[in-house]
């Protein structure tokens, strides 16, 4: 589905943000991308939809090499890739509906989007998505009138409105409380399962990454230092990714739940936090 071959990115300043990145994501797989700040997580997902220009290597989405596209072809490839942002990146002064419909911009002629004349299919899909993320009534509110969690839901609806073949998610929970973070992650995970969408989720919170992804990729200084299942993420691996730290203390809670899974009440409590 998505295949990265020898991807590198060197910034003009000489900083090597990514070096020799190789991995493949099959349909429906949710990949959690973890790593310390500045490891190149954000650069990596932005290279895929070319918000950042990769220096070398290739990125295959189906049969298209994304690194070779320009102009119209690049725009047509971008509309196949939905993106969800840190701090939501909604257009604050537009209505919720306009924000969701902006997911169709790649498919709609400029004059139609200028007059906000979208097709009935686009509009009914937008209403359905808003209903699904729990914002059915808010379509005419301005985006800046919503709370953080609500805004990220609009962000998810906008990405899904594209009917994407791939989802790129950049720190979706960075400024949300723990409960809302989990709800948002669950929404993203659900959408991926439902549509067998592959997703790359760039995330700081190791516990969230483990809980909601099928596979974890650990990035350090622009290189992949771990690629495996979430439960293979041992203390030794975390040290390899982030450097020395007392990981048992951080993860103590999570491991406890893994062992005495019979204690249902306790697990539920942790879920709700």
């Amino acid at each position: 589905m998505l295949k990265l071959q020898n991807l590198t990115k060197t910034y003009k300043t000489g900083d090597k943000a990514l070096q020799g990145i190789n991995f493949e994501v099959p349909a429906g797989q949710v990949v959690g991308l973890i790593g310390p700040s500045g490891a190149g997580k954000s650069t990596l997902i932005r290279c895929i939809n070319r918000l950042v220009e990769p220096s070398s290597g290739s990125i295959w989405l189906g049969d298209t090499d994304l690194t070779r596209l320009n102009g119209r072809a690049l725009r047509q490839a971008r509309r196949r890739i939905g993106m969800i942002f840190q701090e939501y990146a909604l257009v604050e002064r537009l209505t919720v509906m306009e924000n969701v419909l902006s997911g169709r911009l790649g498919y709609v002629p400029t004059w139609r989007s200028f007059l906000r004349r979208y097709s009935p299919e686009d509009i009914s899909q937008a209403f359905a998505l808003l209903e699904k993320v729990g914002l059915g009534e808010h379509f005419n509110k301005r985006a800046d009138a919503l709370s953080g969690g609500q805004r990220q839901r609009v962000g998810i609806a906008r990405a899904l409105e594209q009917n994407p073949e791939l989802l790129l998610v950049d720190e979706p929970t960075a400024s949300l409380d723990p409960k809302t973070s989990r709800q948002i992650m669950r929404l993203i995970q659900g959408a991926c399962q439902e549509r067998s969408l592959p997703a790359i989720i760039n995330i700081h919170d190791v516990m969230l990454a483990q809980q909601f992804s099928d596979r974890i990729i650990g990035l350090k200084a622009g290189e992949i230092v771990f690629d495996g299942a979430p439960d293979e993420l041992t203390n030794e691996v975390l040290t390899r990714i982030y450097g020395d730290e007392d990981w048992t203390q951080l993860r103590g809670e999570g491991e406890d739940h893994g062992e005495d899974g019979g204690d249902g009440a306790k697990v539920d409590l942790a879920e709700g936090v």
Partner: protein
Amino acid sequence: MALQSTGRSTWKRPPMLFTNTLWRRLIYTGALIYLVLAVQSVEVDWQRVYLGLERGWRFVQGFLVPDFTTRWRDIHAGLIESLTITVTSTVAGILISVPIGIGAARNLAPAPVYLACRGIITLSRSFQEIIIAILLVAMFGFGPFAGFLTLAFATIGFLSKLLAEEIESCDRSQIEAIRATGATWWQVVNYAVQPQVMPRLVGLSLYRLDINFRESAVNGIVGAGGIGATLNTAIDRYEYDSAGAILILIIAIVLVVEYSSSYIRRWVQ
């Protein structure tokens, strides 16, 4: 955990400019000496000031007893002409400034377009309105048309520059998000940039309307039509009471524009 003293208890903010102490003292002393010498070189003719005071006082008296009636027809015609110049030049200026402003924003325009648009802005901003007015009066003759062209030209420099700066300081993530959907350049402008800059553009346009009205009063003095021409004639004829009336009307109109623009600005936020 008790804190251990490091033995240091004084601290001074380090100088940000001229970090070398000797140079810093030399530069500051030099600047002070220059200021004193410069002030001393200004020649003031106190006798002329005394004479002027008397004339100024007559002006103030005229202002206190304004005469709206004697020259009302001239004043009325002048005001209408000024307002016409103001509105037409502001509208024309805005229409031309918006594309130039977008072209002069580094985050939207390619380098050649950026340089060309910045060039136009610099050209428009490098001449004061009066100088352009004198030139255009020479080219197109006395009257409101020269005034209209002058103010439209000056509006371009003002509005495009501030609009371009507003676009450049837009939230990048909103632009990125729209671009990531596969939107064209026009769609990015329409969906990500326009909503962010619109309130500021409306505010700046209203502010420019206000400036253009005041400028149209000044430009009249060099022959570019409007209330300024009427004011100039009144002063030349020593009719300070009529001049006072004109000034009061200018102030009143500026006040009305000011209040209504702040109202409109609040409404578009």
